[in-house]
């Protein structure tokens, strides 16, 4: 890849003031996404994935404090004026959320929502916008798109709604699509369809995509690079195939082990990760994963490990006691 990446997140931290004290939701994250590439961000609930995506979009809650730099297409979004930021978002950013129940406006028809977005962004007239909406709905795999335009979100199933949400997100031809747990609220059979749809549209439109998920299975085979997050920090980052071939961070290993396997014997206990993530308002002195880590050593409690390079320059992890097992999973 040549030139600057489409998106680069540099030392981004997000602080949320809470009644119990300052909550550091995202802590010094560095990431890059090239044009047309896919980054997977993996981690359990409350590890800062969503806050990171909101920080990229500059749509953090009002009280949140953001530091660091978010460079997109050569501009620093953090320092951009509101009107310029709005125009940039309109041209190049879009987001798909976890719950299609709340990500569509309940009182407007699918058609109104799509057509108005198209008119706003592409300056089409009513008839052209309607034709384009029908094409978009057909592209995201909705049967009888013309009839769907007249329907309200509550008349569609969850999978259909998510397809509509994707159609709206794609309507303005974004350069970067952020999918925040796009399949968590859906049936397993629908999940694969939606992920394949996202991958197909991404290839066709050559847009960059960030998939945020708690499921390593979602990320495998559908992303170019994976960043594993824990307690607001990136703890391991690698090209997807390299990560699944050889993971170094015990947390990544534990996440992978926690995916139920179809060929496991019946009634096998799922190796869940014991305990909870640390209280983000009271940061630990050492490694945040140390209380739950199987390989914990004395040093882990005293010092915070920094992201360091592994055998190849694009594989990084933050651990004093890395594991070196071949995971034996092909990406």
């Amino acid at each position, binding site marked *: 890849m040549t030139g600057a990446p489409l998106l680069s997140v540099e030392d981004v931290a997000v602080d949320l003031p809470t009644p119990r004290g300052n909550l550091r939701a995202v802590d010094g994250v560095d990431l890059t996404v090239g044009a047309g590439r896919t980054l997977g961000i993996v981690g359990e609930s409350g590890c800062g994935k969503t806050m990171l995506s909101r920080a990229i979009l500059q749509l953090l809650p009002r009280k949140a404090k953001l530091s660091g730099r978010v460079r997109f297409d050569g501009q620093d979004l953090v320092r951009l004026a509101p009107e310029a930021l709005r125009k940039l*978002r309109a041209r190049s950013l*879009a*987001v798909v*959320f976890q719950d299609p129940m*709340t990500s569509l406006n*309940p009182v407007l028809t699918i058609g109104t929502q799509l057509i108005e977005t198209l008119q706003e*962004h592409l300056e089409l007239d009513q008839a052209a916008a309607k034709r384009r909406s029908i094409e978009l709905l057909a592209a995201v795999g909705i049967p*009888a798109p013309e009839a769907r335009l007249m329907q309200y979100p509550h008349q569609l199933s969850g999978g259909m709604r998510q397809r509509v*949400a994707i159609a709206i997100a794609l309507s303005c031809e974004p350069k970067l699509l952020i999918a925040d747990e796009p399949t968590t609220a859906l049936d397993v059979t629908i999940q694969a369809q939606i992920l394949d749809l996202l991958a197909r549209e991404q290839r066709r439109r050559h847009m960059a995509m960030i998939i945020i998920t708690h499921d390593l299975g979602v990320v495998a085979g559908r992303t170019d690079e994976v960043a594993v997050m824990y307690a607001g920090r990136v703890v391991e980052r690698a090209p997807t195939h390299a990560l699944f071939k050889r993971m170094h961070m015990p947390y990544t290993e534990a996440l992978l082990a926690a995916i139920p396997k179809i060929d496991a014997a019946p009634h096998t206990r799922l190796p869940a990760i014991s305990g909870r993530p640390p209280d983000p308002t009271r940061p630990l002195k050492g490694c945040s994963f140390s209380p739950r880590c199987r390989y914990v050593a004395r040093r882990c409690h005293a010092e915070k490990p920094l992201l360091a390079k592994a055998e190849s320059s694009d594989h990084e992890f933050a651990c004093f006691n890395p594991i070196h097992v071949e995971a034996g999973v092909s990406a």
Partner: protein
Amino acid sequence: MATLELSVSEDVIVASVQRTRRLGPLFWTATGWMIFVFAVAILAPVLPLPSPTDMDMLERRAPVSALHWLGTDGLGRDELSRLVYGARISLTVGLFAPVIGITIGGALGLLAGYFRGRFETLVVGSMDTLLAFPPLILALAVTAYLGQSIFNLTCILGVLGIPAFMRVARASTLTLARREFVIAAQALGASHARILLRELLPNVALPLVAFFLLGVAVTIVVEGALSFLGLGVPPPISSWGSMIGEGRESLEIAPQLAFIPAIAMFLTVLSFNLVGDTLRALTDPRQGAL
């Protein structure tokens, strides 16, 4: 992973679910009464009614007859005619005052709930001040200063309704503004005006309209109370409240003079409440389901 492509035959989904919600006879009776009252009030000038202000001193407090269907009042004026013309006043004030409330209160609530911050503090604070002020004293002061007229009365009642509408609008805006469809619109670069008008307003309008009908009912009662106290429309114009007030003087001799307008008001207010409640119940499930 291999996935199943969706291959549903196209004609299956098109038939949208028909809305077959039973509204019940009570709803239809209430709606019927409302339509009847509105029709009579609008058509009053063309109806074959005697003038509501012509006095016939020989026929004071006359009982029901072919000439005076509901009898006459203490000054010999036709009671039915006064009731119909009174409906014009009560309904005009009852409808236009909440329109003032829903417009100004709704706009303030929407803006306060969306922009938050200092603007919200200012709006909520001034509304609390307005609420804390005794409404009757305010009405008395304004009518004493500006004079008694239908326009002044409507304005006072409208202003008094602003805080309630502001609260309804702000409360639903607060919850809606955090919903993901608003954030998705922001991520797509929608302007504040667009988010307020196209994303939030259609959602906030539902509870506001339901509240509007209840506001109409309350306003008719308050207008009646003010007219009863002599602060409402100036005589000889009749409104239901002033008719009850005048009927009070002859309660022992001719109780119907106070009771007939009271029953008309009771039925109309009840109808507005019933229809308002039913409409709110109709619009609620969709909100709950989403």
